[in-house]
């Protein structure tokens, strides 16, 4: 490959990526500003100003990260991982500051640290580092032991907090890690298939039963093709069939009020006066935006505080109300561009650590984006995952900027070797 001066520069620094990131940050600040326009707090106490401070701090951190040597990152992975576990244990057992029933913060007086955010990054580094040296394969089942051990500890600690949605982030990162560390698409399909089984068999309608049947057929077909070790074949087959039946049986064993609780979690609109209230307000806000939106500061839903958590979890409905379908599509487009530029970082190098770290970082972003937006448009249960760059919040803004820093770092620090 040619290595002209100009090309080299574009390799080392991704201009488009940086511009997209700043555009997203600017949109976020603008939206947070629009939710707090009416308040009479001094400007340095407003959410939007604080958000700018967080972003400036995050940007400085990200730029500083560029100059960290890649080998240092690798050697820092394990210590960071251990430190994050210690913090998770501390927050769980000792210093839990109870915010809305879940102790998730360590209060150091000056700043509050959210260990689960820190753990996301530490875990990503560690799992990437391990998988880059030890690829996984279904034909060598022992290769899963260490990654699974690395995964289960922070996962369990976060789940115990209890913070289900963050725990799910860990699952997503791990699965994508496996994908880029040796598993094929068919393998991924096998891993995910039991979850699909539960989804399909839960509903008793003909279509879903048919879908479930097709799924089982596909699983059988894939198992034939892959010729996996015998016990794995049996495991996946049984897992699919048993989870399908067991979930239905478990469902029938639940008390009616428990069933109702699960149903309102999965479909908030079935309880429009209770849990569905937020979603109903969010849908109204987004839907009333129309194609072009009501314009900045004209969102009646937003400004009259009908929307709860408007500047954090439901920021996307603020966007939908004020800027309409076009605004939403534009922002989602920016996200695609962002993820594309981010993921293409790894294509420049043949270092598997870079591949895994890049794709893991992308997955963290993707998971937050999809779960958050799907929640605000009523496609998924209401969970507490914020939207990257748009939602108000210091901890998460910092996490995002550190990830951006890592992505920039890999582009700058990565080395190419002719093979």
């Amino acid at each position, binding site marked *: 490959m040619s290595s002209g001066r100009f090309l080299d520069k574009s390799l080392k620094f991704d201009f488009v990526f940086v511009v997209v990131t700043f555009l997203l940050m600017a949109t976020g600040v603008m939206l947070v500003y629009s939710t707090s326009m009416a*308040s009479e707090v001094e400007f340095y106490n407003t959410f939007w100003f604080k958000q700018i401070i967080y972003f400036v701090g995050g940007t400085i951190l990200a730029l500083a990260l560029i100059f960290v040597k890649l080998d240092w990152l690798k050697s820092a992975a394990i210590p960071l991982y251990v430190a994050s576990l210690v913090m998770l244990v501390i927050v769980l057992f000792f210093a839990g500051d109870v915010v809305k029933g879940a102790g998730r913060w360590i209060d150091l007086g000056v700043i509050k640290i959210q260990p689960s955010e820190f753990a996301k990054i530490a875990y990503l580094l560690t799992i990437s580092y391990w998988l880059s040296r030890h690829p996984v394969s279904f034909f060598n089942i022992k290769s899963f032991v260490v990654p699974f051990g690395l995964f289960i500890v922070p996962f369990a600690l976060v789940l115990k907090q209890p913070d289900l949605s963050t725990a799910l982030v860990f699952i997503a990162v791990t699965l994508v890690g496996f994908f880029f560390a040796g598993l094929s698409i068919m393998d991924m399909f096998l891993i995910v298939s039991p979850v699909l089984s539960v989804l399909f068999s839960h509903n008793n309608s003909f279509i879903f039963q048919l879908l479930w049947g097709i799924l089982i057929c596909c699983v059988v077909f894939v198992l034939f093709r892959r010729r996996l070790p015998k016990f794995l074949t049996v495991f996946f087959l049984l897992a699919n069939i048993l989870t399908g039946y067991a979930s239905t049986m478990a469902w029938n064993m639940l008390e009616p009020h428990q069933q109702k609780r699960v149903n309102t979690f999965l479909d908030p609109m079935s309880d429009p006066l209770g849990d569905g209230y937020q979603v109903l307000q969010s849908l*109204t806000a987004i*839907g009333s935006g*129309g194609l072009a939106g009501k314009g900045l500061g004209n969102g009646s839903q937003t400004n009259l505080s009908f929307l709860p958590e408007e500047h954090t979890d439901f920021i996307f409905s603020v966007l*939908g109300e004020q800027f309409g379908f076009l605004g939403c599509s534009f922002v*989602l487009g920016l996200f695609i561009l962002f993820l594309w530029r981010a993921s293409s970082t790894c294509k420049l190098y043949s270092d598997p650590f870079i*591949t895994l770290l890049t794709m893991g970082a992308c997955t963290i972003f993707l998971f937050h984006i999809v779960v958050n937006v799907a929640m605000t448009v009523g496609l998924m249960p209401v969970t507490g995952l914020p939207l990257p760059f748009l939602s108000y919040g210091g901890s998460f803004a910092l996490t995002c900027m550190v990830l951006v820093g890592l992505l920039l770092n890999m582009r700058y620090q990565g080395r190419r070797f002719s093979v």
Partner: protein
Amino acid sequence: MYSHFLDNDAVQNRNWKVLVYMGVVCLAILILVIRLFFLQYMHYDENFQRSESNRLRKTVLTAERGYIYDRNGNILVRNRPSYQIALQSMSLPRKKDERMVVFNRLLQIRDQDGERLFDSLSLDTAFQRARWIKAHPIRLLEDASEAQVAIIEEHSSELPGIVTLIESRRDYPYGTLASHVLGYTSEISEEQLKKPEYEEYAQGDRIGQKGLEQGYDQEFRGKNGLKLVEVNASGKEVGTVRGVESEAPIPGYHLVSTLDLKLQKVAEEAIPDSAKGALVAIDPRNGEILAMVSSPRLDPNIFSLKKRERNKGWAQVALDSMRPLTNRAISGTYTPASVFKLVTAGAGLEYGVLSVSKYYAKSCTGGYQYGARYQKCWGTHGNLNVVHALRLSCDVFFYQAGLDIDMARINEFAERFGLGTRPLGIDIPGEKGGWLPDSVSFNNKNKRLGWRWARGLILNLSIGQGQLVTPLQQATLIGSLATNKGVYRPHLMKELRDSQGNVVRRYEPELIRPGKMKPETHRVLLAAMDSVVNHPGGTGKRGAIPGIRVGAKTGSGEWKKGAKTHAWFAAVAPLEDPQIAVAVIMEAAGGGGAVSGPIARKVMMAYFGIEDEQKK
């Protein structure tokens, strides 16, 4: 370290996987965009309508709390409207200076006496809170008078955001009458909210405390409704949301109690508020409580007042050394005194130890020598049989009878008729059980003090000094002794009715103790009770009513050396067909026949509708 790097094939494979990954990303985002298109383009009109002209608000429709009636349909507890002046932050002006104008105007409002309606401090707090709390109104003035409401309404055009709300509060038209039976309501406490049995309650809910209000709180509450209302920009309701059903509130049940207002009034008048005492009137045929008084009383109306006055009233009753909060009729335990002699006599007759013809060798010469101890009697009564001994309430006779019968048999007989540690299970909270000591329970209870059971204790116990009973148990005892048809669970709820007046639940009489004895025992006890009242020498002759055969037993409970005795009087009438049993105790008031007898008599006269001739 180069060994970890990918070869050409692996790189190709990796790049292909990245492509697949981006495919998944695009697919996920595409689904979201389709959903957005569906919401923002295809359903734009209805969503826009809903958000623009109509804003949604969730309101709770409070269910009306049920009333309490007496058995004849007189209202004992009802609700009254109470006006609250509140701040609705939704309709307050958005700009700070315009808000200050409202604030200052409110400060200037004065009532007829020239007093300010609002003080600046609490008004400022309310305005501060209004910036955060938008879902519900913030109370400025609690339980406002009609004059105050009129003033606010007059200025309503200059006061955007100030609204008058109507709540309903409990009203007890007879004040202190039967206050312990009725109970009161107050806001649910933090501790109660944490308990699982109060899961359905929310902060700020009013909940019944004590008495019927607590015992039947679930029934009185009904079910609150919910409504999603659309409000326009100024906060006025314009309608409900299409497609979302509102839940109408279900009013609570009305309770028809077994109390008789007429009887209750007479009983309340007969016991002065300055004295400590209790009265229970019960129908022994089914356990219905006709009147229940505990003195001193409290006025439950204080709990419906404004916060400041409420706290003042509460402090007064809570700190009073007379303990007006205690319902002495069910949770006061006293020594049963001579009334218990009925039980000793009954047990003796039942087990054949006593009979009408049985005379003890030692006649009453003013006392009884037991070992080294000389136990006194309150008089000198001579040689007696059981009927005479009950009539004169002679201690010496019962000392000997008690030693003959033994405590276990006496206590067994007592438990048949409702005495003992097990509470009778009345349908209001706070009932206590009594205590019937025998050798085992006495040793257990006094283990720490090192006291041991001794046979000499039977002397005191057989005349009722040492046991514990509640006035309710005492009334139940004499009633069931007179009927010999079993002990029914005492209760205050006769029936529950829904808001249309249909009977939803009726209290069925429930047999809780056998309450049976041999006919011969019954005959002798009736004769004895009769002679206590209707014999010229009987201790309870002040309970006599012309034309009605009243049976009774007096008691003077010793509780502190040198102090006046607790005055007991337990009566039942008419003896041939018992309809009402009354137990009266006046603490530290003197002899039972002299003090409590006339009180019981008044209540029974009222029951039979006989005018008091002496008064005329």
